[in-house]
């Protein structure tokens, strides 16, 4: 559990750096959901445990596509 949470933290730090400095190579499209998927994943894992929480986080990431409206979406 702690491992997953710290992996999410590391991901977020790198992500923040890449976004702030816009390191070339990728287009950094902003989040269409609030909270962001990483925040959502943290909450999900804390609330539902590793397996169900991770699954919920994955479906959230899959929902981040052009065919959804986005917006506010809490776990």
């Amino acid at each position, binding site marked *: 559990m702690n491992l997953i949470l710290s992996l999410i933290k590391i991901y977020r730090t790198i992500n*923040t750096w890449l976004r702030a*400095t*816009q390191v*070339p190579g990728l287009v950094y*499209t*902003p*989040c269409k959901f609030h909270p962001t998927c990483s925040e959502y994943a943290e909450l999900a894992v804390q609330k539902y445990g590793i397996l169900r929480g991770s699954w919920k986080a994955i479906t959230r990431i899959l929902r981040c*596509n052009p065919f959804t409206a986005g917006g506010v979406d809490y776990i």
Partner: protein
Amino acid sequence: MPKHDLGLAIIVLTVLIRLLFLPLSIKAQRSQRALNIINPHIQAIKEKHKHDKTAQGVAMMALYKEHNINPIAGCIPLLIQLPILIALYQVFISGLNPQTLSILYPFIHNPGTINPLFLGFISIGIKNHFLAIVAGVLQFLQARQSMNYMKASSGAANPQMAVLNKQMLYFFPVMIIVIGWNIQAGLILYWITTTVFSIGEQLYLRRTQ
């Protein structure tokens, strides 16, 4: 390419790919900046409705509506970009010589000679420390410019964030030099081109905001 110049070919290919993603990139950066500007409001809402997720949601919804935030696309663009990037790096890393190229594009007639000398004096196939440093310096300029654009008018940023910003301003340029020190000049040339393109893109964003 004139004189089968491999260096020019790398620059042209890089610019073409960046042009392809230009509309998306411009939109994404504007959208990100808009989000950054309202970030203090988001934090305030989070603080205010700490224990009431429903109220927090309602307030967030109102905020998004008020500022007309409509983030685009989601993470699908990443899935399109990654294969292109990986292919590009693969080509550079596996080395550019007529043999590997004919495997890569069997349908294209082998150009015969490839001139590995860029502009007649920079060899693409070997390491080039000078280019690595140029890439690092350009990366620093681009990062600083971009950060100023992104955090513009965000008001009182907290000191912890400022420290983080200083760190990341130097982190990637140093990393670029360290990596660039040991790779072929061709890959560095790609990086320099794409960084210069980013700087130009930023200048355009500032002018038209």
